[in-house]
């Protein structure tokens, strides 16, 4: 049932009724949904920010690598974030 295998060519977007926004008061990105919210660390926010319904997982990884050239092992973290967001149904596959 769990379709959690994140593939490079997959495209994800925010789930319906979810909102992603920068919160000045928290200095962080948040995802808002009925009855809940989640605060995202910088890195996690950078991933979700790039989910525009067009970028593939591969695009997002490449873009983040280019933006943060010094970050180590970044790919693993990005895929991990996809997996978490998917398991929490914050995002869905297009």
């Amino acid at each position, binding site marked *: 049932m769990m379709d959690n295998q994140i593939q490079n060519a997959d495209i994800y977007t925010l789930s*319906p*009724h979810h*909102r992603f*926004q920068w*919160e000045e*008061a*928290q200095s*962080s990105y*948040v995802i*808002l*949904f*009925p*009855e*809940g*919210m*989640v*605060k*995202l*660390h*910088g*890195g*996690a926010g950078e991933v979700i920010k790039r989910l525009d319904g067009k970028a593939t997982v591969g695009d997002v990884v490449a873009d983040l690598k280019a933006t943060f050239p010094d970050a180590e092992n970044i790919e693993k*973290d990005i895929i*991990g*974030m996809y*997996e*978490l967001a998917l398991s*929490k*149904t914050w995002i869905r596959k297009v």
Partner: protein
Amino acid sequence: MTQASLGESVVQKTIHATQTQNNGVAASVTQTQPLWLLAEVTYRCPLHCAFCYNPTDYDKHTQNELTTEQWIQALRDARKLGAIQLGISGGEPLLRDDIEDIVVEAKKLGYYSNLITSGVGLTEKRIQAFKDGGLDHIQLSMHDITEEINNFITNTKTFELKKKVAAMIKGHGYPMVLNVVIHRYNIGHMKEILEMADALGAEYIELANTQYYGWSLVNRSQLMPTKEQVDEAERITNEFREKSGSKMKIFFVVPDYFSDRPKKCMNGWGEVFMIVTANGDVLPCHSARVLPNMQFPNVKDTDLGWSWKDSPAFNKYRGDSWMKEPCRTCSEKENDLGGCRCQSFLLTGDAEAADPVCSKSPHHHLIEQAILDSRNPTIAAQPIVFRNDKNSKKIIAGELKDRVDEFHALP
């Protein structure tokens, strides 16, 4: 509005969400921002629910409601303090005709806004205005699959209307969030309630076991199910989650009376929740006004920032320095912060006592007694005191004493 829709279960979800520790999602530090603003815009309500947690003396606050401008100012000020989730609740918020204006302002300010309603007063015209204005979701209270129980427990004929409203919410592309308060009269229908919710296309359903505040405390012996019923209800819920293949998210709010540790009420006093009541009182939890010797700020005369950060009321039970034994030296105090101050005071007469739900509390026998009372046929046969203006006036006038006398404040 309905129980726990704004309270415990929401709190649990916040904790759950912000404490996720994985792959860069922040573990929550102690929040000192009012992330959740709950606007209890009116105490007027066309329903008369037996389990309503509104204060029994609400009738005092139906004549001095904040104006539209005052609400808008409160929204602006709370947003500056960091509030993001906005619950528009009551009473029945739709009894005010300015919810449309409040919704528009909420959108402008960047809130994620939620209308918490019984559905009475929701028309095509109004829901369209909410949609256009940017309301994010609507939470509808449902009571049972049977017309009989719905109409009995709400003391109104609203069964057919609820179904119509559910369809309207769906029809406008809103996520369907249902809240069902669970008590003796509907706990036997758990499976059917879940199936109904699924059939209505609900995305979320909150099964909120009654918590005993306000009217539900007065009706505690009449409403409380047995431990066996609660266990069975939880089992059915888990089974439904696993087997049905339904995508619906189910939140089962456990009843604290049958647990041996209290809930971390409101996720901590003055930690994430700020409530502004119909008349402008600013509270850390819905029932805080039952506490003695407390002066709560009011938006009519004080700034919200001061209320949240500096008012003696909000600071009184922040953290754990106010605690006494057994909480003070308890190794579990971080988990529950000693439970609910209002519950402690209402039941023990001491707001700083451990929540009597806790088995370490010297007052735990009060909870055990309440459970026994609810199974005592003579006590349980007392009539339900429905939440309505007439009963509220009576309670204010000191009548119905036999139903409130055992508590240390008017529930």
